[in-house]
């Protein structure tokens, strides 16, 4: 036996086959139904937006890190796709480029790269473009979906989102909101597609139901209690708040971003509930019709504190009276 070739390392000696890349690829797979739905509803323009965003994000990361492997761990592609999903379906191409690059560089790399960023990079990208070119993202800029019309120019007819007012809200049925046939961000409209993707992530063990559960639960309850019941009753109004706008996308894919959310089980529930409360406070009593982005970014900021205060009781341990 050749003794020199033996690897002497610390236990355990076997590892799961999961890697950062495989996890990120799973997230991309999970986003596929929503991406497909976006193309079905908004046509080729949605496809172009997604391609530009993903390509820019991957390129920005590869350039910043001076890496040749453009896919690498897959996290930049995820950020790029998520960023596209929180844009209108057909924004100007330069806005997509600037936003996706900001997501990677300001949202992630300046903090030290993957694992070190505090805020959800895709939402940082969105905050940047909303602040700089709000005219393209606020108001009556939202395309009407044109199902199965791949080549249609969807930018011709624009309207406001169902969240902008009661009239707009009542114009869409719960069924349409669930399937996704409503004006809104490219990837946020179809609850069905998002749920399908999230089911995959749950099956692979990449998300914990406490975050989306807490988030969606609170939105429903607050929508039902404080929503004024305008949407055909308290419960349906609660449901409306869950299905309209970015709650589904936010709760299932943004608030479950691993890096920027708590690692403790209790912390995850608190995070989800916090997101729900802030979202609804903005929607119901704020100046802006939608609050998901800022709710998640705010909760991102307090994530380290949440983790610190929710250290679990170890096996067989007893609570110390503080």
């Amino acid at each position, binding site marked *: *036996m050749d*003794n020199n*070739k*033996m*690897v*002497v*390392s*610390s*236990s*355990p*000696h*076997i*590892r*799961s086959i*999961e*890697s*950062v890349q*495989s*996890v990120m690829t799973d997230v991309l797979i999970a986003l596929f139904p929503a991406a497909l739905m976006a193309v079905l509803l908004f046509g080729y323009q949605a496809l172009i937006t997604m391609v530009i965003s993903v390509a820019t994000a991957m390129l920005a990361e590869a350039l910043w890190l001076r890496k040749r492997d453009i896919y690498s*761990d897959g*996290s930049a592609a995820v950020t790029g796709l998520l960023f596209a999903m929180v844009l209108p379906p057909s924004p100007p191409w330069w806005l997509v480029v600037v936003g996706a690059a900001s997501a990677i560089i300001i949202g992630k790399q300046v903090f*030290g*790269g*993957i*694992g*070190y960023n505090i805020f959800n990079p895709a939402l940082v990208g969105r905050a940047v473009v909303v602040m700089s070119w709000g005219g393209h993202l606020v108001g009556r800029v939202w395309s009407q979906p044109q199902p199965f019309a791949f080549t249609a120019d969807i930018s011709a007819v624009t309207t406001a989102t169902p969240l902008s007012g009661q009239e707009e809200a009542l114009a869409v049925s719960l069924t349409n909101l669930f399937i996704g046939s409503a004006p809104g961000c490219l990837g946020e409209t179809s609850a069905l597609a998002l749920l399908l993707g999230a089911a995959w992530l749950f099956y692979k*063990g*990449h998300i*914990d139901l406490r975050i989306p559960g807490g988030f969606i639960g609170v939105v429903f309850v607050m929508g039902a209690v404080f929503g004024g019941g305008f949407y055909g009753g308290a419960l349906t109004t609660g449901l409306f708040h869950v299905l309209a706008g970015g709650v589904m996308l936010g709760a299932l894919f943004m608030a479950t971003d*691993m*890096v*920027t*959310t*708590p*690692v*403790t*089980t209790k912390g*995850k529930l608190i995070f989800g509930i916090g997101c729900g409360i802030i979202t609804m406070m903005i929607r119901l009593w704020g100046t802006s019709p939608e609050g998901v982005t800022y709710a998640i970014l705010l909760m991102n900021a307090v994530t380290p504190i949440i*983790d610190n205060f929710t*250290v*679990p*009781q*170890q*096996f*067989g*341990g*007893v609570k110390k009276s503080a």
Partner: protein
Amino acid sequence: MGSAVFKGGIHPDYHKEITASMAVSKMKAPSTVVIPLQQHIGAPCEPLDGIEEGVRVKMGQKIADSSGFVSAPIHASVSGTIKTIGAYNHPLGRPVKAITIESDEQEEWDEKVKPPGNIDDLSPDDLRKIIREAGIVGLGGATFPAHVKLSPPPEKKIDCVVINGAECEPYLTADHRIMLEKPEEIIYGLKLMIKALGAEKGVIGIEENKADAISVMEQAVAGEENITVAPLHTKYPQGAEKMLILVTTGRKVPSGGLPLDIGVVNHNVGTAVAITNAVREGKPLIERVVTITGSGINKPANLLIRVGTLVSDVIEVCGGLKEDTRKLITGGPMMGLAQPNADMPVIKGTSGILALTDQDVYIAESSPCIRCAKCVEACPVQLLPTSIAQAAEHDLFKKAEKLHAMDCFECGCCSYVCPSKIPLTQWIRVAKAEIAKANKK
């Protein structure tokens, strides 16, 4: 039963099919054995008077002992002549004083090895003495002297003995085979423990992936009103002391405490058989069942091996190692120790010899933590491995201690699941060592 669960844990590939159906065969005693004087947790032994180079010893003869209570004597595993007494490689890392005996192939038992008489007349103290003198330690790998566990302080009332047949480490099948082949000895050993402790009942926990062992053991306990078999979910580390006791008795060993604090003593199935052999036949612990397996072993097997047999001799009997073997491990893949070579003896705690080839050896650079919390979910004692490891990396050992680093029993689940391949267990081990050092001062 079988419904109780512990939080956390993992489901690795078990690879037990390699050796599970292979009956234990006796490996021929080697021409030379190297017997370390420390094969247990506690005080090391010293050679007895008259045990010197050139002296002839008989099989089963006690050759080294210690006056410490937490210790276990050492016996000759062959008859023959002592060649040297000196430091030799040891599976635990540093070389340890060892007695090398050249076998005369006579296999002559020491006169003292004989049945101690009517077993029913033996008092709990007699039993403990016999078990101590037989040098029995925990054969699951922990190597804690068995008689110490059977001597709880008088204020601790023990009512339940838990026998560990979980064998949750991947690859290993030694305990599985013992359960299939020696059920009567296991039950008998368990009854002796119950008697020594004045306990009321016994329970044998077995993972459900060993259905044949469960049915054999169930048959063996039929008619015993105070002994039951508990089928357990197949999940690593089901056989870890705290997890096993929780799922078989519903009791939680307190943090920093011992099973006896909650009225439980636990022993491995192999230990139960060793106790039976010691009490019924007076035989000291000079051999044990070892699983030799893994992608790097040409002829995997479950072998009954004399303590002190060199790992290299064992591997030779198993057809040698494959060309591309990259890792040699004593014990299982989750908690075993990687060895630089095979020039070291099988000791009382060696449950397995595992050789892994290139394809099974994971060498990858770690990347930054993506805070996926998989380590948190996997930790069976509910720690935050990522936070403790990070504290350790930054020399923040006070913080690591606050995060209960000392409760970590190094099961390896956190490192196993980490997608960033961070050696979490290793970092936590560093933290534990530093905390222990600081607390000693």
